[in-house]
């Protein structure tokens, strides 16, 4: 597939449109600005989400905005798109001060947004989705033919290949995203904001998206790309602004900066981007999956005859695009979902029929993919979550009652050891950041000293600083001789941590590679194209 082979290039910004309106706000001779934010300030109650933000985005460029989760990127873009009103500050579009009170005003100002979670009506066709809100009259008929012609033009002009009569839910995610882009362009957007656009894409789809973005830029559009992935910033942007804790800390020309510098700006200290790990010393097989088949609640086969094993002292990574059976595999391994056939063995003994509590007693620990739904009760205080699932441990019991003092003492120990902040076991779990919540789950599961550790999406929604810590702990567990199964949709994470990579597509294992296999090779397997 040629689209994977395209080399990463970072061309100089093309000449600016001659038609750009001249503006009194920038000095003569400087490149005209598409967007200028001056002193934007926004608080939500106690949380100061954006502090005196200044940002200038040049017309006809791809401008990256990078920062950790909670740095304020999304809030800033929501202000630009009229979802929230800034408490203070001014937005200038093409040099003209503009008040953006709602999305309608943003659309009128030529700003389009591609949301992280697509704002598409799934049982509508592409055409209907594109028309929604821009129907061109009370009756649909005249609008439909006009929209069809306009879509055709946009598709050819920007190399967006989408069938206007396809129903959204039948389209792969990459195409759904193109519909979002089409929606914005159809409304005449000159400035396109993309919020974490590659989170749901295969590497090939992401490459395709980047190609589209370059075409858009070359046609004179301005693209603002919000991401937390440094690699994407380096691959596609012309300039990058870094946000940290609600502040805009720096803006760089991408060609003149490095991944290391950006990471340091994001976190505020030096970060180890590479996982520091030695070679694995695999022991005997600890976890064995044999011809496992799992169906979901609709009876659809989600895991199809999957077999692999994990040895003590090694990390096996399951790579794949979200929704290819990894979640169901994890649930079956954790005893939450009963497999319809096949077997799972821990230390050679079958676990069929064991519930999650029995599995835990047999040395299995599980860090679920979705900590909010399965890993934690967010309304509980931290210490309650720190023993959730292990509340029957005699250490935490005083006769038939919970030994609150013992539990809190244990929680405080874990807080210290895992550097959970704020260090307060009486705080409601919902009030911890994503990274600290994940550390609470990890501490609970790892400190049981399991023989088999299965981890789903260990760093989803976790900031770089915490990622570094979590990765280190996982490698330490491996070196302590634990068998670790790691499921992640972040291919970079799998390649950095795993000793062997198993790729899943459409519920099947399509192949196994070493982590130093090229990203392209793995990407093709994840897309079900190569084995």
């Amino acid at each position: 597939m040629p689209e994977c082979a395209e080399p990463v290039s970072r061309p100089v910004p093309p000449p600016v449109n001659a038609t750009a309106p001249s503006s009194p706000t920038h000095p003569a001779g400087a490149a005209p600005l598409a967007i200028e934010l001056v002193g934007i300030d926004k608080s939500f109650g106690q949380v100061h989400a954006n502090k005196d933000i200044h940002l200038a985005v040049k017309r006809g460029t791809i401008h990256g905005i990078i920062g950790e989760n909670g740095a304020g990127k999304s809030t800033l873009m929501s202000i630009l798109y009229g979802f929230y009103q800034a408490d203070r500050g001014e937005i200038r579009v093409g040099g003209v001060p503009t008040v953006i009170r709602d999305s309608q005003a943003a659309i009128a100002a030529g700003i389009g947004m591609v949301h992280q979670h697509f704002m598409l009506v799934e049982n509508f066709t592409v055409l209907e989705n594109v028309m929604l809100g821009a129907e061109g009259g009370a009756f649909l008929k005249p609008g439909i033919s006009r929209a069809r012609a306009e879509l055709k033009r946009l598709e050819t002009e920007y190399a967006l290949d989408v069938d206007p009569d396809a129903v959204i839910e039948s389209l792969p995610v990459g195409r759904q995203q193109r519909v979002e882009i089409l929606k914005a362009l159809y409304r005449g957007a000159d400035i396109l904001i993309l919020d974490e656009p590659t989170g749901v894409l295969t590497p090939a789809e992401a490459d395709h998206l980047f190609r589209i973005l370059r075409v858009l830029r070359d046609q004179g559009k301005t693209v603002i790309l919000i991401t937390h992935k440094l690699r994407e910033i380096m691959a596609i942007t012309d300039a990058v602004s870094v946000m940290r804790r609600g502040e805009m800390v720096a803006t760089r020309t991408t060609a003149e900066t490095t991944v290391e510098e950006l990471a340091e700006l994001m976190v505020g200290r030096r970060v180890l981007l590479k996982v520091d790990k030695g070679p694995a010393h695999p022991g005997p097989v600890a976890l064995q999956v044999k011809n496992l088949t799992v169906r979901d609640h609709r009876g659809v086969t989600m895991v199809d005859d999957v077999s692999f094993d994990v040895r003590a002292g090694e990390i096996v990574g399951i790579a794949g695009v979200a929704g290819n059976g990894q979640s169901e595999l994890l649930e079956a391994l954790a005893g939450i979902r009963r497999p319809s056939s096949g077997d799972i063995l821990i230390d050679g003994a079958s676990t069929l029929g064991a519930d999650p509590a029995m599995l835990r007693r047999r040395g299995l620990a599980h860090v679920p993919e979705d900590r909010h739904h399965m890993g934690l009760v967010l309304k509980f205080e931290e210490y309650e979550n720190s023993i959730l699932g292990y509340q029957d441990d005699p250490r935490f019991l005083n006769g038939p009652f919970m030994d609150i003092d013992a539990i809190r003492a244990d929680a405080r120990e874990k807080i210290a050891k895992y550097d959970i902040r704020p260090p307060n076991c009486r705080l409601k779990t919902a009030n911890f950041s994503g990274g600290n919540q994940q550390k609470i789950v990890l501490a609970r599961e790892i400190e049981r000293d399991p023989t088999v550790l299965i981890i789903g999406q260990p760093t989803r929604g976790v900031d770089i600083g915490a990622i570094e810590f979590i990765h280190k702990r996982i490698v330490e567990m491996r070196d302590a001789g634990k068998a670790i199964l790691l499921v992640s949709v972040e291919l970079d994470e799998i390649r950095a941590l795993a000793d062997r990579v198993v790729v899943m597509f459409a519920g099947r294992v399509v192949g196994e590679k070493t982590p130093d296999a090229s990203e392209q090779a793995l990407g093709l397997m994840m897309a079900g194209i190569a084995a």
Partner: protein
Amino acid sequence: MDLFTAAVLVLDSTVRLTIPLLFAALAGLFSERAGVFDIGLEGKMLAGAFAAGSIAIVTGSPYLALVGAILVSVALSLVHGFASITAKGNQIVSGVAINFVAAGLTVLLGQNWFSQGGRTPQLPNTARFNPIELPGAAAVRDVPVVGYLYAELISGHSILVYLAFLAVPFSWWALYRTRFGLRLRAVGENPGAVDTAGISVEWLRYRAVIVAGIFCGLSGAYLAIAQSAGFIKDMTAGKGYIALAALIFAKWKPVPVMFACLLFGFLDAVAIRLQGTPVPLVGEVPVQIFQALPYILTCILLAGFIGTAIPPKAGGVPYTKER
């Protein structure tokens, strides 16, 4: 009476029994396709019926009564709308509350105003919607089969009956061929898509519940001043719930909604027809069996014979912009 005549009579009564269900189910269709579940169809029908009965007896005008029924029903719709759209409350609780209020208040006010045990006084024919003779019905009555069908089945219903059947293609057209319909269907599936397109989710949903109120008012007026000659305590008798079942059965689509309502109306008509009549081979069957049939059928059909009925995805969930 020969079998053909009997069949036509049953079908004729099917039509009459279908109308309140059809109006109510269309009400539910608009509301639920916009993402607002409406278990309060029953209460709105009942309040509408009471308003129609009261206004008809006082003013003597069926048209004023119809308008009054619609206004009362829309007012209750707005209460439901306020609770579930603006105040983001639980839509089921709000709907149930409306049912209780309507059931109690109609009887209370009825007794207070008319002192007839909660019913409104018997209406003279001038204060009702009377059967309309379609052109030529009398002339073709004697033409075998076709003429008789036209005269008995097609002709001779009140204006509201024709309105109900016209409302079906109209609803289809409104939902699938207008901007309002496109947005309404969208807001029931993904209000975020509507919001980001710069359209007010709340106003759209309010309009949908107002449409639901209008249809429930029509349904109630039909019961009190077309089918009957006055309001009777609890005269909706669960029709609002049957309409909801028909809506689910029809997978929230206008034309199937009509057929589902006709099916339930038919079962009702058969039940009435067979009361006290011995069924061949079986003998006399207790009337309760027939009365229970629509409910039993609903249970069986919904339990899997119609495939999965997927409700509008955002149904029942108040819309809040995500932080």
